[in-house]
């Protein structure tokens, strides 16, 4: 009798153990490993970039702990719920963006923040990074694919309004990322390459129009990018100093916390947008190769997860989110190393900062949801 009882307890706990698998948690271990590796490495670089400040590292670790919880939470929603929720979410974020335009908080020459006094202060444009791919994916997944002219037109309208609002704040970096997330959904949906070529042609033709609609500081950034030496102490300073930091790092780097460019404060924004220059200076080309490999594996795993999604909405959403993540990395590293103009895009998972990391992790939560939910979702 007693033996039976204990056997029963043993079997039950074993079953429960089996039930508590990665899939029941709706997590992907490989993606999680890559994320944790990059975040941990990022904290090490941040400690050096922030002038050996444990305070900065603690704040960042706490923020990521919270972001991981949010990721875990969002991963529990089934893609179908997200699809249903997409339109409502989209409308709410649009309303928030309009509210920012009317009653938003100014900071650093832009109006980006919405403040509920004493509770929270956030950028609605960050939420659009999630709402946009969700909405476009939700729309296209109900259409016959590949999308036609009409679908494309609807998508451009859905994309154009919020992007215009964000660009008007002004926030070039975010509006660009939001655009990218929408474009990736459309491309992944199978938009014919002919359409892509025509649109690219229009895009190039529209460049001068863009130029005349840019703010003075944005134009200055583009000009500085084209010739940083023209104003070495003004706007060109950042690029010259970050290139110097990267270049002086060499193959092996100057060593952790030994980077003269970053430790002696020549490098601007060294714990936020330009943190990769600190890494390149202190860990050299080897450090950069390791970082880029981690990102590459993360993106590849993400793409694979998207292909394994059960439905079109999940695939499109997952694919768009991971490719937008790629744009993040590429634009940031590109601008710090001087191949792209300076736009305010942080290095994902590493740069010190608020809302961006939360939305990123929420995005990874969605990616995990679309990957893990298809077997358990009833047809």
């Amino acid at each position, binding site marked *: 009798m007693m033996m039976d009882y204990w056997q029963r307890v043993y079997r039950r706990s074993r079953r429960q153990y089996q039930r508590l698998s990665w899939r029941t948690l709706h997590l992907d271990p490989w993606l999680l490993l890559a994320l944790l590796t990059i975040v941990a490495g990022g904290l090490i670089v941040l400690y050096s970039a922030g002038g050996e400040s444990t305070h900065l590292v603690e704040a960042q670790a706490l923020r990521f702990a919270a972001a991981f919880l949010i990721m875990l939470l969002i991963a529990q929603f089934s893609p179908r719920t997200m699809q249903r929720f997409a339109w409502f979410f989209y409308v709410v974020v649009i309303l928030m963006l309009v509210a920012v335009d009317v009653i938003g908080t100014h900071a650093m020459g832009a109006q980006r923040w919405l403040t509920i006094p004493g509770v929270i202060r956030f950028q609605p444009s960050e939420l659009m990074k999630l709402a946009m791919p969700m909405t476009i994916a939700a729309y296209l997944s*109900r259409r016959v*694919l590949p999308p036609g002219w009409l679908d494309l037109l609807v998508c451009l309208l859905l994309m154009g309004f919020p992007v215009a609002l964000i660009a008007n704040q002004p926030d070039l970096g975010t509006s660009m990322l939001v655009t990218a997330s929408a474009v990736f959904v459309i491309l992944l*949906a199978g938009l014919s390459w002919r359409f892509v070529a025509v649109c690219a042609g229009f895009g190039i033709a529209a460049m001068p129009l863009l130029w005349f609609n840019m703010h003075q500081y944005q134009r200055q950034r583009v000009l500085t990018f084209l010739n940083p030496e023209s104003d070495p102490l003004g706007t060109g300073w950042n690029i010259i*100093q970050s290139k110097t930091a990267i270049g002086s790092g060499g193959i092996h780097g100057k060593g952790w916390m030994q980077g003269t*460019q970053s430790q002696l404060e020549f490098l601007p924004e060294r714990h936020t947008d330009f943190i990769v220059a600190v890494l*390149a200076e202190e860990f050299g080309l080897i450090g*950069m190769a390791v970082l880029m490999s981690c990102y590459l594996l993360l*993106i590849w795993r993400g793409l694979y997860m998207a292909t394994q999604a059960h439905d079109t909405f999940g695939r499109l959403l997952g694919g768009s989110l991971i*490719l937008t993540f*790629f744009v993040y990395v590429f634009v940031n590293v590109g601008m710090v190393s001087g191949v792209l103009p300076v736009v305010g895009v942080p290095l994902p998972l590493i740069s010190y900062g608020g809302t961006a990391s939360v939305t990123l992790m929420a995005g990874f939560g969605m990616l995990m949801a679309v990957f893990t939910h298809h077997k358990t979702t009833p047809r």
Partner: protein
Amino acid sequence: MRPRRATLKDSEQQARIFRHRSIVAAFFVLIMFSGLIGRMVWLQVVQHDIFITRSDKNRMRVEPLPPNRGLIFDRNHDVVAENRPTYNLTLVREQAGDVSQTIARLIDILDLPPEEHDVLAQRSRERLRSYEPALLLSDLNEGQIARIAVNRYRLPGVEVEAQLIRYYPDGEWMSHVLGYVGRISQEDQQRIDTSNYAGTHFIGKTGIERFYEDELHGQAGVRRVETNARGRALREIDRTPPQPGKNLTLTLDSKLQKLGHELLKGKRGAIVAIEPASGAILAMVSEPGFDNNKFVTGIDTKSYAALRDDVDMPLYNRASRGQYPPASTVKPYMASAGLEYGLIQPSDTVYDPGYYQLPNDSRRYRNWLRWGHGRVDMKRAITVSNDTYFFSLAHRMGIDRLSEFMHKYGFGEDHSLDVWGAGSGLMPSRDWKRGRYNQAWYPGETLSVGIGQGYWLATPLQMATAVAVLANDGKWVRPHLAMQVGDEKIAPPFENTPDDVELDNPRWWDLIHQAMENVMSGSEGSGRASGRNLQYRMAGKSGTAQVFTLGQKEKYNAAELEERLHDHALFTAYAPVDDPKIALAVIIENGGGGSKVAAPIAREMLDAWILPSMKSSEEAQRHAQQNESAAQQIVTGD
């Protein structure tokens, strides 16, 4: 909207499209990342050298380390120019946080008077580079330093900064000969190696400080410091220490110098004393003097104007630059010239009726004693300072030979070794007059020059040098002020020393010495009043230079004008006659008769120099004698 058609086939086709697009995306990502890595290779491998240089240039700053200026001592090793530490209060605004609060605390701590409050606030707002300290107060006293030290924790960014500045303990009586240092001006920039002066604020402007500037200054060092982007030095990487300037020991005796200053007090004049054997200048006094310390940190314009416009010209170094007719002090040199040229024999006499007349000229050139000295030979002519004898000699010699021979005594040229800005005087000649006035030389002018007047001008330094040469029996040593520079002794022979004055018969020197000794000790000697109770053998020669031009002084009031028309009193002397230890020249502007006014001063200077050394040598002699007699006693005792 079309009806939903989620057929299995559609779904599979869509999945296939997506998979295809994903593969394209994966390649795209790979290519783009490869591009970024390529960029990194370009920056970190190919262009690494350029950027490592740039980053080093960013962080390293080369800072000059100024050397400490060498000290100046007199011959007794008393300091006459030293470096005084001063303490300045500075504020680095970037570190201060709330600047106005810090200033308010400072005012409270130092208990500053209200009128300084605004000055302090203004200085704290001065436009500076970031992290450059603003100078709030200079020359803090010890009480202030202590109070700031105690309250330091309440004064972020406030520093007490030490700086060495020049200090001249003797002030007025050394000011002319030492000169002074001052802030480096644009003019000074022309004559210095600016890299060596990068951290130096002061440079020698006049006098010894100017002449020995290179030696006193030393060699600047450098240090490389690591700075942050705001230019703040964080740590020192390496340094080449500065080499301090060399210390300078002067030939001057500050006690003798001070005595000269006291003897001339209230007068305008100069004294130059030289050790004949070595050419060492023992004293070089010019009165009135000024406090050269005022010039170190920069004199205010009002005080400077007061000094500059003073009718007594305290800034003027009379000893080395003042030009006066040497008057009768030249008579011994004239006599030596007459002997050498064979124009006179020592025993030859001239009858002096009280005046001299050129042949075929009715004009009478008067002796100073209106009724004349009667028959005078060479020695008597010097002793009583007879003019007629020397008019006659000068006329026979002619200006050409006269001028040539007097050049041998250094007149008309500056032969000093290291006296900055020494004047060259004026030894007139036929050529000079033609060049200057485009006029022929008149014989009557030779007569004036023959008694040291007319166009003839000499500096007190030249007069002292000439009498030292005479005391040396014609042997030349260039007068100089430095005895030792660092480890290097400054001693004759010097380069460019003029040829010695040579007489055919060396005994003639003795005759001249005797004549000059008679000036002091003879019954007729012009300086006999100052020659009473001499404890050593002194030779001298008085001179009284007429001031006959009003010149630019005409604007002064009557009383002053009268005073300034008085004769200049001169006296040259040396002693002891058999072994000269000191030769000197004294000049008192508008002092009157040389024997009456200048001679007593010369006597006091000589006493002060010779008596102490005599006393000690006498004592030594006495000791020696005692020892000797004691030894003899022992010998006889045996």
